[in-house]
């Protein structure tokens, strides 16, 4: 496999280029390599040889990226940890993924992980001139593991291999040949979201510069400020981010932007219309893909908003990446042809082997394995794909996958003997979650606070509504629509 060698060659070839701009501070590729060498030395000297996987806390620091690349260059799998997640969640991730060693760029880790079974190494300011040999990686060897919200009420763990990522990177570079070493790429995603990989893998593979969002800032304002920086030429973000900073469109001069990349959520035409004058010189692309099929599986590139392909007011997700095979199926797993809607299933070199705790999530068709996305997708006459909705209870909150069942299960773990219903709703254009419980004896404030200690921020409900009894449908099911209409639609 050539992926690791490609990275290292670029780092060496572009050593005087800026690799990162982090919290206003520049780092060249030469400096970045020294940080990688330093952390790699720490890995060789202090960490047991048998270590196959490490955790890296996703602080905004050069040492965080150095730890990730040092591990990869040594063939070690990385599990990113979110400093904003409660320690209970992070510890669950460490336990399931078998991580015993964690690297951190900052000392403040007490609230992020409980250190009883984990050794934390601080690679703050650790660098070295000593180079080291790249590891040989094998087909199927995992490169990273991410957790996503699961339909069984428990998170799912997605291992993605070096080969999966190599296929993704090759595809991206083929589709976006204009990304060059003089570009500056604004990376707006948390490192635990796979969309973040686009924001740093691709620029680092081309010798471009990655701009990051500092920790402990108000993210949306920080993005607005950074994107106005005349140096930024590429930006990738969720459509929600644009919606949040929309009141400031008129104050932002974004004529320097060459490429706006969207991903993580459905992209509404109406939202883009508001921005069309701001992005006067940019080209646009919409990326789509579940974590299970490696970062992005389809893309739609469109030259302007007015002529973009859309269906029901949502911009097309385009066509498959080069190494990806997209099919639509009916509910029995039969392939549907031509202009039709069905479940999108994804095969090819970017599709994961299976979850860490394997579940049946594939169709095998003519000896080829297709991951069932659970997304309902329409395909037009020319083969362009359009996202229409979910086939289950999964929703997107600010670009994050959230399964409503997982929230219901978490509430039931805290309070027994109650019925719980989690419902998503839109308020002022933003997606939010409400939880209904059929007991008025419970303090909503206390429950919310307990959920904050248990769940990632995007899964904590905005509203907790306690009712004496739930409304029921004629067939005896809880009437979710009535709850939504009576309590959530204003």
């Amino acid at each position: 496999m050539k992926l690791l060698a490609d990275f290292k060659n670029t780092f060496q070839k572009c050593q005087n280029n800026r690799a990162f701009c982090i919290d206003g501070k520049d780092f060249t590729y030469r400096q970045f390599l020294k940080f990688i060498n330093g952390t790699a030395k720490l890995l060789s000297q202090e960490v047991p040889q048998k270590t196959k996987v490490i955790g890296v806390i996703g602080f905004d620091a050069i040492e965080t990226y150095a730890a990730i690349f040092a591990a990869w260059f040594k063939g070690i799998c990385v599990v990113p940890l979110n400093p904003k997640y409660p320690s209970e969640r992070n510890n669950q991730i460490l336990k399931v993924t078998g991580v015993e060693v964690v690297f951190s760029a900052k000392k403040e880790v007490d609230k992020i992980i409980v250190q009883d079974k984990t050794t934390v190494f601080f690679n703050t300011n650790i660098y070295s001139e000593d180079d080291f040999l790249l590891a040989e990686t094998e087909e199927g060897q995992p490169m990273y593991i991410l957790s996503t919200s699961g339909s069984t009420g428990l998170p799912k763990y997605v291992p993605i291999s070096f080969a999966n990522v190599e296929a993704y990177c090759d595809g991206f570079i083929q589709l976006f040949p204009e990304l060059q070493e003089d570009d500056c790429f604004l990376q707006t995603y948390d490192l635990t979201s796979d969309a973040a990989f686009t924001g740093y893998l691709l620029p680092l593979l081309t010798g471009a510069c990655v701009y990051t969002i500092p920790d402990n800032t108000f993210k949306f304002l920080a993005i607005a400020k950074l994107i106005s920086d005349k140096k930024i030429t590429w930006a990738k973000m969720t459509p929600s981010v644009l919606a949040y900073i929309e009141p400031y469109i008129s104050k932002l001069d974004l004529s320097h932007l060459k490429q706006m990349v969207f991903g993580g959520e459905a992209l509404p035409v109406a939202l883009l219309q508001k921005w069309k004058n701001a992005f006067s010189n940019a080209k646009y692309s919409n990326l789509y893909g579940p974590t299970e099929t490696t970062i992005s599986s389809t893309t739609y590139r469109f030259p302007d908003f007015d002529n973009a392909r859309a269906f029901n007011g949502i911009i097309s997700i385009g066509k498959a990446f080069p190494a990806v095979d997209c099919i639509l199926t009916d509910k029995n797993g039969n392939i549907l042809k031509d202009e039709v809607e069905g479940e999108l299933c994804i095969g090819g070199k970017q599709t994961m082997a299976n979850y860490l705790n394997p579940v049946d999530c594939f169709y095998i068709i003519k000896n080829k394995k297709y991951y069932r996305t659970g997304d309902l997708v329409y395909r037009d006459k020319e083969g362009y794909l359009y996202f229409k909705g979910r086939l289950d209870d999964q929703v997107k909150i600010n670009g994050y996958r959230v399964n409503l069942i997982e929230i219901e299960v978490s509430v039931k773990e805290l309070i027994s003997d109650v019925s719980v219903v989690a419902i998503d709703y839109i308020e002022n254009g933003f997606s939010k979650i409400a939880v209904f419980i059929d007991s008025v004896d419970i303090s909503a404030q206390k429950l919310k606070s307990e959920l904050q200690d248990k769940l990632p921020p995007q899964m904590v409900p905005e509203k907790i509504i306690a009712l004496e009894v739930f409304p029921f449908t004629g067939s005896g099911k809880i009437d979710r629509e009535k709850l939504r209409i009576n309590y959530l639609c204003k």
Partner: protein
Amino acid sequence: MSKANIKDEVIFVFKKVFENAPEVSEFSSVEDIKEWDSLNHMILINSLEKKFNITFDLFQLIEMRSVKDFIEYINQKLENGSQGG
């Protein structure tokens, strides 16, 4: 509007946005109010802009991390506004 009124009104808006936060006072900051995240910051700004009929400077907003920061900013903004008018 007097300075005392501005203070009370700002605190009132904070209490409305952070329904579940305990005692909000002029001395509360990002560190004290758990729900004061990026999203609620935007909602807060929007509520304060409507309440006082002002617009915040986008880049100054990044630095504003306490109730007091907002009270001072709004005091200044309203003073300058009345002088100009």
